[in-house]
């Protein structure tokens, strides 16, 4: 009985192909947009989280100056190399420390020049930030100690200045300093925020301080904790140590900050997660509108087919059998809409993720939710018209013109 009712419903849907397609369109668009929004949102979240993980989930950054909230400004004392040494020595949860200082400068090679960021640091910087030397070597201990003017080029700088030439051993001018190239980094690509992570030149911290900056300040200290789980502990240890070194008594505000990448990743993840939910909910509204479209057409259909319902009742159909038939028709329409919407949504979000360069993952849960929701839309909005059909009086229905 159920099976033949389904067949009858399918025949009915096919009989009015154009109308069925238009009716279904609302659901198709609703389901497709829900799936596309959620897939894109989750892809973006995954991308952001992965990018931050790429920077190192156990990464902490110590910078001078308080985290700025509101108009309070604290005049901050610059960090010094000794601070980095103290962290290495005192904080047990810390694995590696890279004091860094930055300057921007024009880098010149032959007749080409490129304005970029010059970072002064130690070899720890490469491992903490996840940079790999693709050719040549990192700095020697003597270079680091003595502040020899040597440098390692980021992939972008290398491309801009040298093209296909081999830069190893060549000499470039970094600002006023003549610098020998000892190595080239492998490309890391763009960061989450669209920054080119390969557009910089790195030299020993001592060289930068002495030859470019002219002081012994350290801009920030990159710290890696011994493990992902140890970041909180490392952060506490560093904070305590720094307060002590900077003579900050309890109750006084810190004049430095320790940023935790994991925290940032979590915050960003929850922001994009909330955005995804919001977009999904907005798309869900269109699904509801699609459901109303189905109800509308089913009501028209019941009126139009009053005579048919009369015939069915006269030859012995019971009320609930007529109800079932119309309900199945409504569910068939909405479920078909759900399936086409699913295909469209997945196809669309696949294309979009490719275009935006974010990972494409099929989330089964949202597919199931979208399908179940569209079928329930069919039941929900199909019930009222179906009940109207089932309650018709056979004699009046047969007389209906």
């Amino acid at each position, binding site marked *: *009985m159920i099976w033949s009712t389904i067949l009858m419903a399918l025949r009915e849907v096919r009989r009015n192909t154009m109308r069925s397609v238009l009716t279904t369109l609302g659901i198709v668009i609703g389901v497709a947009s829900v799936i596309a929004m959620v897939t894109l949102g989750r892809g973006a979240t995954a991308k952001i989280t992965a990018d931050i993980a790429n920077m190192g989930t156990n990464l902490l950054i110590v910078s001078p100056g308080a985290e700025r909230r509101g108009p309070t400004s604290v005049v901050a004392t610059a960090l010094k190399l000794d601070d980095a040494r103290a962290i290495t020595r005192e904080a047990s949860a810390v694995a590696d420390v890279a004091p860094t200082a930055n300057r921007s400068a024009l880098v010149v090679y032959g007749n080409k020049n490129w304005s970029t960021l010059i970072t002064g640091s130690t070899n720890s910087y490469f491992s903490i930030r996840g940079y790999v030397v693709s050719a040549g070597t990192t700095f020697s201990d003597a270079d680091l100690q003595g502040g020899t003017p040597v440098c390692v080029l980021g992939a972008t700088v290398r491309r801009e200045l040298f093209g296909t030439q081999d830069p190893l051993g060549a000499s470039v001018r970094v600002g006023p300093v003549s610098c020998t190239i000892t190595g080239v980094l492998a490309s890391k690509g763009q960061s989450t925020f669209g920054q080119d992570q390969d557009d910089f030149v790195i030299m020993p911290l001592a060289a930068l301080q002495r030859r470019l900056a002219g002081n012994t300040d350290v801009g920030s200290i990159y710290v890696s904790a011994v493990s992902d789980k140890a970041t909180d502990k490392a952060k506490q240890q560093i904070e305590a140590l720094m307060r002590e070194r900077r003579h900050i008594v309890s109750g006084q505000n810190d004049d430095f900050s320790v940023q935790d990448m994991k925290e940032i990743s979590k915050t960003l993840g929850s922001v994009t997660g909330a955005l995804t939910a919001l977009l999904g909910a907005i798309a869900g509204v269109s699904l509801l509108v699609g459901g109303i479209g189905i109800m509308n057409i089913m009501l028209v259909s019941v009126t139009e087919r009053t005579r*048919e319902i009369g*015939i*069915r009742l*006269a*030859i*012995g159909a019971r009320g*609930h059998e007529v109800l079932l038939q119309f309900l199945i028709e409504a569910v068939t329409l909405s479920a078909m809409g759900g399936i086409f919407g699913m295909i469209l949504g997945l196809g669309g979000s696949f294309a979009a993720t490719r275009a935006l360069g974010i990972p494409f993952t099929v989330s089964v849960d949202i597919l199931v939710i979208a399908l179940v929701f569209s079928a329930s839309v069919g039941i929900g909005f199909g019930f009222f018209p179906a009940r109207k059909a089932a309650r018709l009086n056979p004699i009046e229905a047969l007389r209906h013109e």
Partner: protein
Amino acid sequence: MGASGSGKSTCLNVLGCLDKPTSGAYLFRGVDVGTLDMDQLALLRRHYLGFVFQGFNLLARTSALENVELPLIYRRVPSVERRKLALQALADVGLKGREKHTPAELSGGQQQRVAIARAIVTKPQMLLADEPTGNLDSAKKTEIMRLLVELNQARGITVIMVTHEPDMAEFASRVVHFKDGLVERDIRGNA
């Protein structure tokens, strides 16, 4: 028989268990129909009754075969047997070879034959026909009446028919005349 508004169609609706009498009782197979609910009436119609209407009342854009199969679907007859019975019923009313035609592709007489096939495919005890010849020309009227008489005589199906045309009443063995909602005359042994 009777003029329009004389109550003949209402009587047929009561006899066909489509309507319940407002007063008095109608016993069908010993059951007082007035005491049954809509679903039980539907089951009575499903198992014992067949209907033919003036306006044919076939499902549009649906083949003759599927139209005839319809009552069998509600009787939960398996599809293979359903097809067999429907083909047989269509052959019985002389529509062999027209099974795939939709009502729009059939003449009025042929449509009424499909309707009759639909009514008899369940082998009902009683066939109720409300002005079955009303929309047909005289040649087709006679054709349909012969078919109904044949069903009555060959199969023993009780045929109850409403008409206002005296020459159609000629075919019946008992004629009840209605006037203003009352039975005026009841003539037995007509034919």
